[in-house]
Structures are given as C-alpha cells and as structure tokens.
C-alpha cells in the first residue's frame, strides 16, 4: 500500500513538473510576443489585442491547473521550502529540528541581510540628496557617479584588508592590530591597546559584526585553552565599554566607504587607551558610579562619563 501511495505521489510530482513547464512556456510566449512584436496586418489593433488576450488566458489557465494540483502534493520532509538549499541541511538533526532554532536562525540571517541591503540603498539615496546650500559642482557629481554599489558584506576588490589593518597597526605604536581568519573566509581582528584593554572584532567583509572588549589581564580563551570570543569580561567597566563601542560601530558604519568606516572606527577605538587615566571632559572628575569616563565622543574624542554624555 505504501508503494501504491508513493507511486501516486510520484505521478503527481511528474504532473506538476509538466504543468510548470507548460506555464513557463506560455509566459515566455507572452513576453517574446511583446518584445518581438505580433505578426498581424498593420492597423489591425483589435487582432493584436485578441492575440495577447489569448496568450494571457493560456497563462492563467496553466497557473490555475498547477494551483489545483499543488495542495495534493505533500512535502516529503519537514523542511520548509525556503530551507531547501545547503543551509537547510544544517538543520537535519532531529533533536535540534524540534526546537525550530535552525529555521529561526535562517530567518534572522535573511532578515538581517535584507535590513543591511535596504540600509545601504537608503544611505545611497540620502547621500545624493543632501540638503546642502552650496553646489558641489561637477567634480562632486562625477565622484558621486563613480560610487560603487553597496557592498554589504563583500570586500571590494580594490581594498586589501591586510594592508588596511597593517597601516593602522603601523600608525599607532601603542595599538597592535592583527588579523586572523579562523574559518577561512571570516575575518577576526585582535587588538591590544597599550596596557589598557584587549579587543576582538569580528568582520563580515568589512562590516563590523561583533565587538568584545576585555581587560589587559584577561584573555579570549576558555578555561581549557580553546579560543572563546563570546564570553564577557569579569569587570563591569569593560562590559559597559563593549556596549558603548558596539553602539559606536553603528556611528561609523558607512556602506559606500567600508574601508574608511573601519579605519575611522579603529582610530576612534585608539582613544580608549586613556580609559583609566583621563578625567571626564564635562565634570572634570574621574569616577562616576565607580566607573571611569567610559565614552569617547565620536567627533571630539573627548572622554565622558556615561551620565555626562547629554
């Protein structure tokens, strides 16, 4: 009986494929006709319209047939159709599938990508419509036209991230920046700033995805010596700094100039070398709520307490 069911199932699938092919053919016909023109006597618009209507009806009929068949075909696995790519295979462990976490992760991933993409386009449009009184002139316009497409997470070919990191590393004697690629393509920057702090920055292309900051005396390892970039610092001050610096990455985010955005972020991060030694530029004190001035202004680089920022 199971064989019988499988047979009908296969039959239905074959039918569906055939119907899809038919639909494809009829749609193609509409578009080729529209682009190449109909073969009809001149001036006879009515005949033309009739022909178009005929082919559109054919499309409609084919689509109707396919839709009628669709509910009868059951998915052979529990994987939602959107997961039927290599990512979907990650979630084939029945234990994790039950929790639905793979599906959720996949959705989140797609959603974040979409947000980044839309954000990039928005930035592009807003950038071209700046409310500036002075005319930028032809030079500025030409520059604007040469702007690359939003990169999101792809490193443009003309940017060498190794060189970029090396140039920052060389420019600041008290800041050592090294680049590691733990999983081949992904990029992780390891930063030691003076004897004040250590930081790990995870990049996706040139986009800063994750920042973690710890004390100079801490390391990014688990107790048994394996790398661990997700654990938090033991100290309040560095957890607050991590939060604020993560907020800072959004300030420096620039989809059109990803290399400049990463570089200016690193230069701004360099200001944190005075985390413990600089007084607040507003109230002049060192401590506020047992914390030093943990914010560095993004324009003036001045140290400020969290409570003195406004």
């Amino acid at each position, binding site marked *: 009986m199971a064989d019988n069911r499988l047979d009908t199932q296969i039959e239905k699938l074959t039918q569906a494929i055939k119907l899809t092919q038919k639909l494809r053919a009829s749609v193609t016909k509409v578009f080729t006709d529209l682009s190449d023109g109909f073969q009809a006597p001149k001036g006879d618009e009515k005949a033309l319209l009739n022909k178009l209507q005929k082919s559109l009806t054919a499309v409609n009929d084919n689509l109707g047939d396919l839709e009628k068949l669709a509910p009868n075909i059951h998915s052979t696995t529990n994987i939602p159709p959107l997961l039927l790519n290599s990512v979907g295979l990650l979630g084939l462990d029945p234990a994790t599938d039950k929790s639905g976490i793979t599906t959720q992760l996949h959705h989140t991933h797609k959603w974040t990508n979409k947000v980044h993409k839309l954000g990039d386009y928005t930035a592009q449009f807003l950038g071209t419509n700046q409310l500036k009184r002075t005319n930028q002139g032809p030079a500025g316009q030409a520059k604007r036209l040469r702007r690359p497409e939003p990169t999101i997470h792809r490193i443009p070919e003309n940017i060498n991230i190794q060189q970029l990191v090396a140039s920052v590393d060389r420019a600041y004697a008290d800041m050592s920046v090294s680049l590691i690629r733990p999983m081949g393509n992904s990029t992780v920057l390891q930063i030691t700033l003076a004897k*004040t702090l250590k930081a790990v920055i995870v990049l996706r292309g040139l986009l800063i995805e994750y920042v973690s900051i710890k004390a100079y005396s801490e390391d990014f390892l688990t107790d048994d010596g394996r790398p661990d970039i997700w654990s938090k610092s033991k100290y309040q001050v560095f957890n607050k700094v991590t939060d604020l610096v993560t907020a800072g990455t959004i300030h420096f985010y620039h989809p059109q100039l990803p290399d400049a955005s990463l570089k200016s972020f690193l230069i701004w991060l360099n200001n944190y070398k005075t985390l413990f030694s600089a007084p607040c530029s507003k109230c002049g*004190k060192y401590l506020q709520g*047992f914390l030093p001035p943990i914010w560095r202004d993004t324009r003036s680089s001045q140290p400020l307490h969290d409570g003195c920022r406004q």
Partner: protein
Amino acid sequence: MGVVCVFACPVPEGKSGQQVVDGLQKQVEMMGATKSGNFLVDCETYQSNPQNVTQTPQQCVVNILHNSEHPASCFSVTESGQILVSDLLFEDLMSKLTMAKAGRESFYSQRKGFKIESRGQRYEVGDFIIKIGSVSLASNFRGILIEVEYCPCVILNECWNMMKELLQSMVGNSAETPPPVLKHKPDTVYTPSDTILQYLDHFNNFRKAVSAPPPSR
C-alpha cells in the same frame, strides 16, 4: 588581579580604633559596597644566627607574609626588599631552618613579639575591592590599614587618579601621592608582590612606633 594601594588611616585622639573602623565600614556600606567575607595579611619575622650563617657575618632578617587574597602563596621578603613568592611548602623549609639540632643553634630563629597582622572586612563595589583592616602587633591594636584594589587595570599610573578620588574620601590627604613603595615602578604591570611590599612597609612603620605606648582600644 588589579592595582592595589594600601594606606594607613589615622586614629584621631579621643577615639578608639574600633570606633574608627566602625565609622569606615558604615561609610563604605553607604557607598553601596557589599560585604564579601574577611581578609587577613600576616607577617612573621625571622633572623639569622650569625655563627651558623658564615657568608654574612651580620644578622639578616627574613619576613614571611601571607595574604588571604592569594591563599596558596607564601611571600618571603629580605631587608633589602628582595621578594620570593613560593608555595606554602616553603614554611616547612623555614621550620627546618629554625630547629636547633645536635646542640647547635638553628640557622634562623623567630623574633618574639614581632608577629603582626591586618585583618578585617572585605567589601566589593563596582570593580573595586575595599578592605578595612585593624593592625595588631603581638595581639595589641596598633592602627588601621585601608586597602583599595581596582581590578580591571594593571598599571598604577593609569588608574592612580581614580583611586585617589576614592581613597581621599576615606583617608583624607594621606592619599595625596601613590604609596612610596610603588614609586620605582609606576608604569610596569602590577603584581601581588607589590601589595606585600606595601603591607611590609606599613608593618615596619607600626613596629618602629612600638616604643610609643599603644593607643587605647
């Protein structure tokens, strides 16, 4: 392990040591600090018997200190400030050296009435650890030591101004400059030995003042 500063807190005339300690504890609790147990730093002093230690004709002194913050370590400091950090097993060696054997005098002997310690309440607030200790020499009250540790930082010069703000609210102007013992290494990474040297410096000062009558408890 961060930077530690130890300062003596003056006991004003007409007040007992316990009253000052109580006042300080109340003040620290008002700041929002939470109690996190007790602490103890103790120091024993040994001196060599010159007839057995022939290389150095003059008497030499070794101080053995323990710090409850580093419970598995034993710190030995000579008069010149040389410091050795070792396991607690070092004590066994020291007790061997202080044993008289076959009619001969031991290599080292413990100085009587020299045991000095600072013990009291340990507090945590933010990334700071505050310890308020009463110092007693041969179980007589001698004074008060306040220890403040700022854990995230390892360089004294970087966080000194921050610590000063906190310290001055408790011990006043005696915390105007960093502890004298740390003057020679303001920019190097702070180690637990530096804490021990600070305590030893204070303990020596308390011992020197021993000729004066002890303040009432």
